[in-house]
């Protein structure tokens, strides 16, 4: 398959993918205020969507299409609740840092199922998941660096150490541009990244 030119053809923009992308935007902007939040959300998202797609694959063949939506709602709610509880047991601080964005994963699963995402080939799903993960981590890294001027220590979160006096890797001494960690700054940064991407890979003229 040739790359580059048919990038825009392999991801058609229609109303269903608009809905899917709109929900992903909420997660992209809301949960990337720090690198650890972005990583945590990515991890939870991958796990929950994989389990969800496995279970729905089994159920879809046994269910009348009318009940598919109800089943997907129940399944998504169960998986997300259990994932949040498990995350709280693993590291309560990390999970609280995510705020309420973990619960949006359930909605995202239902929307993905409704628009037939899980019935695509695994290649396309992998590509979209990879894109989402890269974007989240890149945004999280940039927003934390620019917004706080320093990168917090990830290991201290996982080992539960509280209040180390180490300031993290300091990039800017005076605290950075606070706008970047707020939601408007996230939108601006995402827009800049998209602009840079489009400048680097020009869309083909028709």
């Amino acid at each position, binding site marked *: 398959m040739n790359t580059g030119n048919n990038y825009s053809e392999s991801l058609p923009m229609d109303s269903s993918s608009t809905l899917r992308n709109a929900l992903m935007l909420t997660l992209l902007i809301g949960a990337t205020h720090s690198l650890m939040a972005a990583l945590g959300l990515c991890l939870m998202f991958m796990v929950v969507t994989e389990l969800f797609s496995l279970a729905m694959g089994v*159920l879809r063949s046994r269910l009348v299409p009318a*009940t598919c939506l109800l089943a997907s709602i129940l399944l998504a709610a*169960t998986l997300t*609740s259990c994932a949040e509880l*498990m995350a*709280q047991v693993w590291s*309560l*601080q990390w999970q609280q840092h995510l705020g309420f964005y973990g619960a949006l994963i359930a909605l995202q699963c239902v929307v993905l199922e409704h628009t037939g995402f899980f019935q695509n080939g695994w290649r396309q799903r992998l590509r979209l998941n990879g894109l989402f993960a890269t974007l989240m981590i890149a945004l999280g890294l940039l927003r934390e660096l620019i917004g706080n001027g320093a990168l917090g220590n990830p290991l201290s979160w996982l080992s539960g150490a509280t209040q180390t006096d180490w300031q993290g890797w300091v990039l800017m001494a005076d605290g950075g541009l606070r706008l970047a960690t707020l939601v408007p700054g996230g939108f601006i940064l995402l827009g800049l990244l998209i602009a840079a991407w489009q400048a680097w890979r020009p869309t083909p003229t028709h």
Partner: protein
Amino acid sequence: MNRTSSIALVVLLAALGLGMTYFVQLGSAQRIKAEQRLIDSGHLLDLIAPDSYDNQPLEHPITIEATPLTNSTLLGGYLATRGDQPVAVLLRSQTPGYAGAIDLLIAVDANGRLLGVKTLKQLETPGLGAKIADWPNAWLRVFSGKSRTEPGDSGWALKKDQGQFDQIAGATITSRAVINAIHDALRYFDEHRQQLLGIPAHG
């Protein structure tokens, strides 16, 4: 794959889902609560040296009804003891700052000396008054070791109010509010020392 079997499957899924969530929640509630307690105590109790007390102060709050003082309100307190001797009292005080209420945690030792002050909640101007929320805090550390007698009652004010303390640059109202709240807490401690420390009155 007919209608009834689908509906039965959905009902089964609902039951399984609810059951699984309930059991996971039941199994993890203890650990999550313990972890939350650990986080809270790490957050609130780092004012006093951890080896100077051996009880769980957060488990035994001192009952103070919301007492309005001159410039602030006392919301409650915790007592840290070692053996049976009271080591320190942590008072939670709320005072109106520049843009909203400031919640402070003020640690006083058994002799009335300040061990430290920490900001729990504030809504002050970022970059100016919000500097009280940094931790560790250079400005709040100035108060450690002070007491009601040192400086005297008239010394507990900003330098521009004929007192002894510098303000945070650009945040006079916030600084004044914090100093008044700390002074109120020290005065309250002095007046209710026996009740707070749990020492029986010697008649």
